[in-house]
């Protein structure tokens, strides 16, 4: 791209399909309702929630967050590379995003297994019920995210299929998985 082209102001655009943005805002509202129920329950039994929260490792939560933020970074690079028709780089970043997602997935399963082994199952108390409900719901979105990323890889693989809008739509979904985790991390691991 020339300097003159870079200097030109870009026209405003909706990244990906507008339908995906309607879904993102809907999901954001639904999760906000879940989070509000959690916060209200937390303020009713603060000692119980703080006592149970102390059994979570904040450093593990930070690791999960950094990994998902890295996946958002790589999928944003994927979109930009595809926009510049650097499809090899776009594909590499899509695979990198999947790798970060997989690291999160394995780490989360290990964390769940550890908590269950320690006796903190879904029915242990109210905090752990919320912990498993919110993280499992997010996990489900993450699993769908792998399918969505597979669509992006499929799009990038062949010159006959490459649709910039489809790739941006997939990236928008993946970023949603990331920002929902950012809120879950704050509420479950950091809040006092």
């Amino acid at each position, binding site marked *: 791209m020339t300097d003159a082209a870079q200097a030109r102001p870009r026209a405003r655009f909706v990244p990906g399909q507008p339908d995906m943005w309607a879904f993102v805002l809907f999901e954001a509202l639904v999760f906000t309702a879940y989070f509000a129920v959690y916060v209200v329950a937390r303020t009713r039994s603060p000692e119980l929630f703080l006592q149970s929260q102390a059994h979570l490792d904040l450093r593990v939560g930070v690791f999960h967050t950094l990994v998902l933020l890295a996946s958002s970074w790589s999928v944003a690079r994927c979109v930009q590379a595809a926009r510049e028709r650097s499809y090899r780089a776009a594909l590499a970043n899509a695979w990198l995003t999947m790798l970060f997602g997989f690291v999160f997935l394995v780490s989360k399963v290990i964390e769940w297994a550890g908590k269950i082994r320690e006796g903190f199952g879904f029915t242990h108390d109210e905090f752990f019920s919320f912990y498993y409900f919110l993280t499992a719901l997010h996990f489900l979105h993450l699993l769908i995210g792998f399918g969505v990323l597979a669509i992006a890889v499929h799009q990038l693989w062949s010159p006959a299929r490459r649709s910039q809008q489809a790739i941006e739509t997939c990236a928008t979904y993946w970023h949603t998985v990331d920002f929902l985790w950012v809120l879950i991390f704050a*509420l479950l691991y*950091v809040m006092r």
Partner: protein
Amino acid sequence: MNAGFERRLLAVWLALAAITLAQLFVGSLDEPDALRPNAALGASAIALALVKVRIIMREFMEVRHAPALLCRLSDLWLALAGAVLLGCYLVGTA
């Protein structure tokens, strides 16, 4: 890839990582087994998370390049989430 855009994405990730590490610091300020809520730490945890979400939306999701309606809707949701979560927390712990 456009070097300027790549630098910007890296700077955004570094900023988000720095806020996350600040959350680790904030979360460690209190005794890990302190059995009383700390309104300042709780509210700052929510506020920092909302700042991070806005950065993700504006930068990674490219809302800053989106039409005004999408910018306003995303900010409206963030304001609503902030009001609901901080409101429920601060009223509940008061």
